[in-house]
């Protein structure tokens, strides 16, 4: 690997010639070994397991087979999957692209920008919708994958929408005391156990919970919210939102106010200042936060379990099922391996190598 690509921004290795000659193994080995035993070795084992035969009651029989991969990719295909499905997927994708392109193009026109980016966005969304439809119709496994990805993408978009005003709000406070207080108020949920936060949502929205009692007292209808897809997406947003706000705030804090003032003085309207000056400057924070929210959401176990109630499974539920009740460890291993590859590839694709050095 190219160890010389370490950016010169860090005062680390390149500028410490004297201590560099000292031995590194005693410092590095214990921690590296520990992490390798707990992460690298089990990770490789999962890949091996995915090619073995399931054993009744859990575990594997050491006989090589491609059954698990076959099951994910080919078998279990729904009978409805055919040319009709492809046609429906294309139609849906086109409809979604058209629906998105109208407001996107209008927004670009309003901001005096080229419309090519808006059209690309619409095309991307259309493609996503089409692929999602195909995956959902193909078989149960691809359906779960597609569902997890789409819900997490939705949660990410909602998180961006909620975090942007908050980041602007906190970073534009003048008094450091207010800023601190507002920041701590974001960090408390950040530090609170994921289980407690998910349970708080479940308790509030339960069929006989406080919200429904309030509605009843007010003479309104009760709502059935738990065990719906809306509950899962709300839960994803609720648990992941601090992970979006904090990096975005860090980026907003660095935005040069003078540039925004200048843009305003030169006659830019507020939306224009936002889109042309503010947004490009906070883009790195947006990317880091977005990736974190997505990765966190797509592998969520507690939220779909406690709020989705099993009907609306995500990848983590599928994995737990295979390693638990279903006792098909090789199939679970294959799903885990595929899922890791998808996550890591999308992570590296979004966060470039240079960003990654700073991201990690």
């Amino acid at each position, binding site marked *: 690997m190219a160890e010389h690509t370490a950016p010169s*921004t860090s005062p*680390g290795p390149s500028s410490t010639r004297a201590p560099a000659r000292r031995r590194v193994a005693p410092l590095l080995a214990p921690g590296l070994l*520990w992490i390798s035993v707990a*992460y690298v070795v089990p990770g490789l084992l999962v890949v091996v397991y995915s090619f073995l035969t399931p054993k009744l009651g859990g*575990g594997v029989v050491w006989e090589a087979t491609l059954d698990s991969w076959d099951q994910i990719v080919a078998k279990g295909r729904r009978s409805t999957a055919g040319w009709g499905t492809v046609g429906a997927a294309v139609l849906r994708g086109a409809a979604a692209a058209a629906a998105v392109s109208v407001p996107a193009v209008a927004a670009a026109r309003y901001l005096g920008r080229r419309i090519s980016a808006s059209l690309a966005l619409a095309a991307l969304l259309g493609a996503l919708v089409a692929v999602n439809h195909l995956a959902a119709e193909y078989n149960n496994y691809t359906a779960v994958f597609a569902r997890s990805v789409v819900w997490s993408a939705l949660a990410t978009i909602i998180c961006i929408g909620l975090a942007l005003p908050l980041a602007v709000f906190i970073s534009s406070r003048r008094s450091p005391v207010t800023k601190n207080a507002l920041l*701590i108020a974001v960090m408390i949920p950040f530090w609170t156990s994921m289980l407690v936060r998910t*349970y708080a949502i479940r308790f509030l929205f339960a069929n006989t919970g406080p919200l429904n009692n309030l509605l009843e007292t007010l003479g309104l209808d009760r709502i059935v919210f738990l065990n719906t897809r809306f509950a899962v997406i709300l839960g994803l947003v*609720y648990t992941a939102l601090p992970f979006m706000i904090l990096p975005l705030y860090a980026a907003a804090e660095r935005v040069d106010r003078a540039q925004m003032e200048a843009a305003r003085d030169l006659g830019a309207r507020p939306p224009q200042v936002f889109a042309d000056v503010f947004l490009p400057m906070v883009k790195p924070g947006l990317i880091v936060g977005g990736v974190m929210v997505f990765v966190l959401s797509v592998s969520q176990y507690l939220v779909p379990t406690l709020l989705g109630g099993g009907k609306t499974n995500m990848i983590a539920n599928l994995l737990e099922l295979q390693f638990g009740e279903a006792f098909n460890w090789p199939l679970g291993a294959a799903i885990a391996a595929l899922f890791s590859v998808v996550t890591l590839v999308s992570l590296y694709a979004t966060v470039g190598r240079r960003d990654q050095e700073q991201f990690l």
Partner: protein
Amino acid sequence: MSRRRRGARAPKLAIGSASALVYAFFYVPVAVLVLFSFNSARTGGRWAGFTTDWYSALADNDRLLTATWNSLFIAIISTAIAVVLGTMLSLALDRRVFRGRIAAQQVVYLPVIAPEIVTGVALLAFFSLTLGHLNDMLGRGAQDAIRMGRPTIIIAHVAFCTAFVALVVRASLRTLDPSLEEAAQDLGANGWTTFWRVTLPSIMPGVLGGALLAFTLSLDNFVITFFVSGPGATTLPIEVFGQLRRTISPEVNAISTLIFGASTLLLTGALGIQSAVSKRRSRPDGDRGPSSAAAVRPDIGHRNPDAGASQKSYPSNPQLIGGGKP
């Protein structure tokens, strides 16, 4: 002029009210949970009167008490090991040049990026395989076999805690001008003395922040622990999860309130300690960065997309915000 002013006020109002809504979104569910932990009704979300019965019931709940003790034990041991290993790793990655540094770095940060659920099932496969062989080797039968429990949980927790400690301490190391250490060595200090007298005192806020993060992560971890804990040793999150899946009982509200209170206390306590440490070692040039709140999560700043810029100036504070728990 006046038109422009009015134009600027409307977005401000919108931003302010949107922010208020987001804060309400964060806190209303938790506040309702806390409130109803004092509700005397056994079931349902209807207020029936104030009581602290559910809290006193917790004291008699042996399973919960055992699980809490297990959690604390595991968190303390894991944090102690992880702080040492993680600090060593960060020193190796940031103060040494060696072959395969980037590869080592990828491995070290694997726990940060790997989906927890995959880690959980991978460790389950790994431990059941190794423990199976171990039991065969020792000739242990079904009765006295070594099973998953505290040791396996600690092995897993140390691994991810180490990665996060390394991340946090590395952020501190990056703000420490290496020429300080070089100066100490030029003046005759050996590597060990330099570390104790120069490096460690300077990165202490980072080490403390890392320790706190490790402790919280270990205490809160659910998914990985779920797969590597045996019937003999559950932790608090696992026990609470089991209880709230079985029934909705006000006891669960009470224990959740306590967990929430404990993590809030832990956070504010840590903020106090950290700002005290930072103040003691910083000259009167004032507050380190925008907030001491930020300093408690130095890891985040470190992942800050813009971190490169701030890292060039040593006195500045990179310990901002920007990342998080897995």
